[in-house]
């Protein structure tokens, strides 16, 4: 359908046409406007002796409802970098996807492994450009040729580099645990335990965090993505698959009746195969 009001091809990228419509509709919703899916999260990261440990819970909420109990919040960026995302779920996923694509293009073009500072700069530029409208708070951790790094990028583009970090709605509880338990040059098991306890504190103190705890250990040798590291003790016993094994229903009687068929006509067709 050709429209005569379209005089130029629409610009690619974000489309602001619905803003006026939303403003007009706001009065009709009575305060109950539909909310986007947030991760309402506790995410944490710790730098230890040989690398970085990232941890996250697995609950995604949509206002007061738990929308996803097994949400994956640790996103792949590069073989040596992973990123935990808090905030609006779609924003964190798309932003980290774009970042991963950009770094892949870079490493294919230049033949080098991307460094963590590169990822942080790209994220910072991207998020600052949109002035906080993209609600993504990210913890980026990775190991590259210059060492083990952990950064946090806020939704407005602020960057912080620390040996231990937390973000999300449960960050204060988790940060308390990390402040108490962090020492420089931790061993792998101590670091994993510390992050797990920190996320657990966030889960216990924050309604929007919960369910399982995922961990991701990044070292020079490789990545160990442990999902789940610790399953919640309050999980329900519902099965997710309702497939019954053979023999569940007992067979009482069996009767076999062969069908009597006569050959009426037979035609042979040759296929032209070379």
């Amino acid at each position, binding site marked *: 359908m050709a429209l005569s009001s379209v005089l130029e091809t629409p*610009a690619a990228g*974000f489309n602001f046409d619905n803003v006026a419509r939303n403003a007009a509709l706001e009065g009709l919703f009575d305060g109950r406007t539909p909310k986007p899916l947030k991760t309402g999260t506790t995410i944490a990261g710790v730098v230890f002796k040989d690398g970085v440990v990232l941890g996250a819970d697995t609950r995604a909420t949509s206002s007061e409802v738990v929308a996803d109990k097994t949400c994956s919040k640790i996103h792949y960026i590069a073989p040596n970098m992973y990123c935990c995302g808090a905030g609006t779920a779609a924003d964190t996923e798309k932003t980290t996807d774009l970042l991963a694509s*950009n770094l892949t293009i870079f490493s294919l073009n230049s033949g080098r492994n991307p460094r963590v500072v590169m990822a942080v700069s790209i994220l910072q530029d991207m998020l600052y450009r949109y002035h906080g409208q993209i609600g993504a708070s990210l913890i980026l951790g990775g190991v590259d040729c210059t060492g083990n790094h952990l950064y946090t990028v806020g939704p407005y583009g602020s960057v912080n580099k620390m040996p231990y970090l937390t973000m999300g709605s449960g960050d204060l509880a988790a940060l308390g645990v990390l402040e108490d338990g962090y020492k420089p040059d931790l061993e792998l098991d101590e670091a994993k335990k510390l992050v797990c306890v920190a996320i657990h504190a966030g889960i216990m103190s924050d309604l929007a965090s919960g369910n399982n705890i995922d961990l991701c250990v990044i070292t020079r040798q490789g990545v160990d993505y442990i999902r789940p590291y610790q399953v919640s003790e309050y999980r329900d016993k519902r099965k997710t698959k309702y497939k019954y094994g053979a023999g569940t229903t007992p067979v009482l009687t069996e009767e076999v009746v062969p069908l009597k068929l006569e050959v009426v006509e037979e035609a042979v067709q040759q296929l032209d195969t070379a």
Partner: protein
Amino acid sequence: MLRHENATQPDTLVFQKESATHGIIMNTRGLRSQLKDSVPVAGLCPQGAYGVQDSMRSGFSSVKNELLPSHPLELSEKNFQPNQDKMNFSTLRNIQGLHAPLKLQMEYRAARQIQRLPFLQSSNLALDTLRGNDESIGFEDILNDPAQSEMMGEPHMMMEYKLGML
């Protein structure tokens, strides 16, 4: 523009009037809009002759719709690329002198003119290569791809708009 330094004011006016092609002065808004530097706030203003709302095409206008730029990001996104270019060119001028940005801008203008007709999709390959967009992915590559737009423009109208005849 003074063609001769001794010419008086009325002479230049007459010269400008008589130099128009066959006496028909073509509206160069169409072609010039491609090479515009930035979209001003009034860029959200209605299209139509003399900047007045074209009621036949876009319906009735209301003051509220036109005054507010609706979303805080709308204007900054429209101007993002031109602003980046300006910033880069000015840095380049400070470091390497005037010739560097001049030459680059000449190449940009040349590349920007390699387009198909307005209602067809142009690949903009030369422009992308110059800008470095062929080596990065942003939201403008995945969201709202014009090639998959659900609304199609009327080809004759788009062509007339581009040539400034509308």
